[in-house]
């Protein structure tokens, strides 16, 4: 048994309803850590990359890291790893909240979900005791109703993950939700759970976790805590204003995608900013387990047609449901966010898909008859309405539930899909942040900001400022960020710590917790190993160099106005350099030498 790990995983065959406990392999743990890394290794071995993601042949792994459930800073996380139904690539979605730590206290690092049940099921895990129950009466409930029902029946000490109607109805961007508002959001991991007919997992654990070197671990945690408290972003900004503190910063940099990336600045950004959220709707911040940052927002829309209470919105959400659809009504944006939480779906893809449909509508490709209503940019009521319709696959929502790549393709305008590998890009227009362009193009799960957050150096100046409008040095920095993030997602810690700490601090916590002799270099190498393994999965799934690209708009339509006026993304240059620095061939395939060096 390795320190800091629970030491076991739970393998569940939903088809036969067999559950068995297995030991975590220490050698694999050393090479892939846990979380995203170890789950990717296991998925690669168990699932043929060409399987239909929504078939019983796909596997869904919920995986904590060794630091999950300890006092490691922001170490309350788990990952949902599977083949994604939105992208056809590997999917690995990170989630905070309370579920991950509780799973470990119950005795398990991971839950491996195989096959598919013939009727809806609920899984209850209580200190090593695991039961599968019929859940027909839960099927159809939204996430909030499900949580309330289960907390009433099982007790409030149980921590929950569940899917809503979106997951049940296989919306391609359905999420798995914990604590009513924390999502393993992207790529459709919730639809995979729905395809397996698993409505929810309830877990209660009263056990504990030991670390290898308690005084050393304590010192490493305190060192990281001090740096997080001293950091401008982690110490004050995120707690006071949430992630939406970025709205004004990104808008001023001219890279706040507006109306399906037609523009880079939103004239009403201030109205949906973190500052306005704090002023108008914030009830109080809420943290995930072990997080001193507390970016989470408990909010309440106190009047008007959208009066309600819930979690969010965070930055990407106010962008997707606001600027990208041209909506400036914070109440509507917030309400649309609550609907996504309740129905269980990714706010980024949901909003961006409506934005794409709005452009199709304004271009005359979609008619009022197609949609069942007008769908113009800026129509707040339409955005809220479409969220409900998508999550329930009602009317035109059934079309949008496939995501904007398929919608744009269906109506003959594939170039209006603003994403990569069928997944929508989030809230940064790479025409004015070049490194983000190569990051989007190479991300192993398609359009995504949390594989390598190039905004940190290019806009925020962390760890040091890079000129956002040059391709120079971007491939190199992007690779380092991608590797760092892959390792970080494997230890169970939140990406936001990297605003203030890096590989040395993370490796110090990991080493003292597990007793494995990690240093910063090995930590980064594990990240590189994971990145390459994900790439191999995607290649076997059929993806090629042509998938490592950006929408035509970003490559050939210059930014119309603002600080990035006149710019397009010089992707080819960065991509060629990226492949070379990765040790991959010209087609973007890892070379034998690289794979051998990484032990793959």
């Amino acid at each position, binding site marked *: 048994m390795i320190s800091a790990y629970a030491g076991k995983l739970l393998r569940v065959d939903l088809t036969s309803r067999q559950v068995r406990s297995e030991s975590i392999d220490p050698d694999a743990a050393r090479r892939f850590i846990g979380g995203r890394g170890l789950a990717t290794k296991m998925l690669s071995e168990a699932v043929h990359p060409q399987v239909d993601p929504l078939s019983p042949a796909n596997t869904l792994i919920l995986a904590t890291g060794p630091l999950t*459930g*300890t*006092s490691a800073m922001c170490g309350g996380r788990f990952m949902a790893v599977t083949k994604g139904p939105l992208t056809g690539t590997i999917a690995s979605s990170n989630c905070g909240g309370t579920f991950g*730590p509780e799973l470990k*206290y119950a005795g398990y690092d991971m839950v491996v979900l195989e096959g598919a049940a013939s009727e809806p099921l609920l899984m209850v895990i209580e200190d090593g005791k695991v039961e599968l129950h019929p859940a027909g009466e839960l099927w159809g409930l939204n996430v909030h109703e499900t949580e309330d029902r289960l907390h009433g029946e099982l007790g409030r000490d149980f921590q929950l993950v569940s899917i809503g109607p979106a997951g049940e109805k296989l919306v391609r961007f359905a999420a798995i939700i914990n*604590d*009513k508002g924390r999502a393993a959001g992207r790529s459709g991991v919730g639809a995979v759970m729905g395809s397996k007919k698993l409505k929810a997992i309830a877990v209660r*654990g*009263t*056990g*504990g*976790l*030991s*670390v290898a070197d*308690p005084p050393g671990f*304590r010192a490493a*945690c*305190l060192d990281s*805590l001090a740096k*997080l*408290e001293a950091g401008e972003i982690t110490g004050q900004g995120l*707690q006071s204003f949430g992630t939406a503190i970025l709205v004004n910063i990104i808008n001023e940099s001219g890279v706040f995608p507006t109306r399906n990336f037609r523009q880079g600045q939103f004239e009403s950004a201030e109205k949906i900013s973190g500052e306005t959220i704090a002023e108008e709707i914030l*009830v*109080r*911040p*809420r*943290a*995930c*387990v*072990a*997080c*001193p*940052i*507390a970016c*989470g927002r*408990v909010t309440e829309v106190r009047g008007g047609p959208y009066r309600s209470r819930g979690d969010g919105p965070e930055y990407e959400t106010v962008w997707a449901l606001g600027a990208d659809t041209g909506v400036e009504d914070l109440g509507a944006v917030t309400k649309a966010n609550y609907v996504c939480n309740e129905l269980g779906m990714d706010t980024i893809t949901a909003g961006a898909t409506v934005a794409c449909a709005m452009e199709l509508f304004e271009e005359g490709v979609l008619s009022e008859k197609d949609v069942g209503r007008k769908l113009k940019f800026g129509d707040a009521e339409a955005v809220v309405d479409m969220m409900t319709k998508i999550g329930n696959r009602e009317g035109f929502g059934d079309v949008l539930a496939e995501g904007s790549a398929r919608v744009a393709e269906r109506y003959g305008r594939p170039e209006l899909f603003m994403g990569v590998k069928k997944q929508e890009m989030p809230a940064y227009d790479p025409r004015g942040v070049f490194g983000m362009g190569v990051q989007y193009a190479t991300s192993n799960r398609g359009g995504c900001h949390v594989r390598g957050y190039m905004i940190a150096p290019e806009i925020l100046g962390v760890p040091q400022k890079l000129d956002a409008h040059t391709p120079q040095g971007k491939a190199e920095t992007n690779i380092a960020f991608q590797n760092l993030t892959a390792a970080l997602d494997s230890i169970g810690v939140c990406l936001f710590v990297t605003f203030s700490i890096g590989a040395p601090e993370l490796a110090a916590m990991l080493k003292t917790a597990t007793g494995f002799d990690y240093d910063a270099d090995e930590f980064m190498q594990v990240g590189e190993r994971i990145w390459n393994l994900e790439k191999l999965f995607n290649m076997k799934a059929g993806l090629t160099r042509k998938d490592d690209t950006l929408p035509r708009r970003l490559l050939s339509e210059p930014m119309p106005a603002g600080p990035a006026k006149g710019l397009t993304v010089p992707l080819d240059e960065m991509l060629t350099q990226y492949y070379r620095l990765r040790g991959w061939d010209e087609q973007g395939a890892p070379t034998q030498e690289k794979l051998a060096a990484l032990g793959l």
Partner: protein
Amino acid sequence: MANMLLIEPEKCTTCRLCELVCSERGEGIFRPSRSRVRVWIDAEAAEYVPMVCIQCDDAPCMEECPTEALVRDPVTNAVVVVAEKCDECAICESACPYGVIRCLDGLARKCDLCGGDPECVRFCATGAIQYAEPGRWPRAARETYTDRLRSLCEEAQA
């Protein structure tokens, strides 16, 4: 006068680092179910209350313990458990009006102020739990806090 734990619930964010490090200090492992401090979370009402022992001057737990297993530390003013004397009768648990002493696995568990350097305070980033002179905690705020602890305890028993 010895310092005491001073609680400002409105600063709590529910990160529960206090529970994690408290359990590590007391049990040697990260095991929040055995933590001496526990954070009450009512997500719907957005009410979060770090529940800690306030080391009552006239501590009912100490008065009612039949084996004299609870004693006052003269330096920190904390009421501490003498493990060898505790016979797991749980009388202290029912005597405590605030629900902050629990008998589990054969031992009464309560806050001992970590001997004067409380670990929860070290890790509380927002100052929801501080270690300060009693005079720094306004009487009204303190009473609001203890009243809430008492009502939460009564709700739990009901």
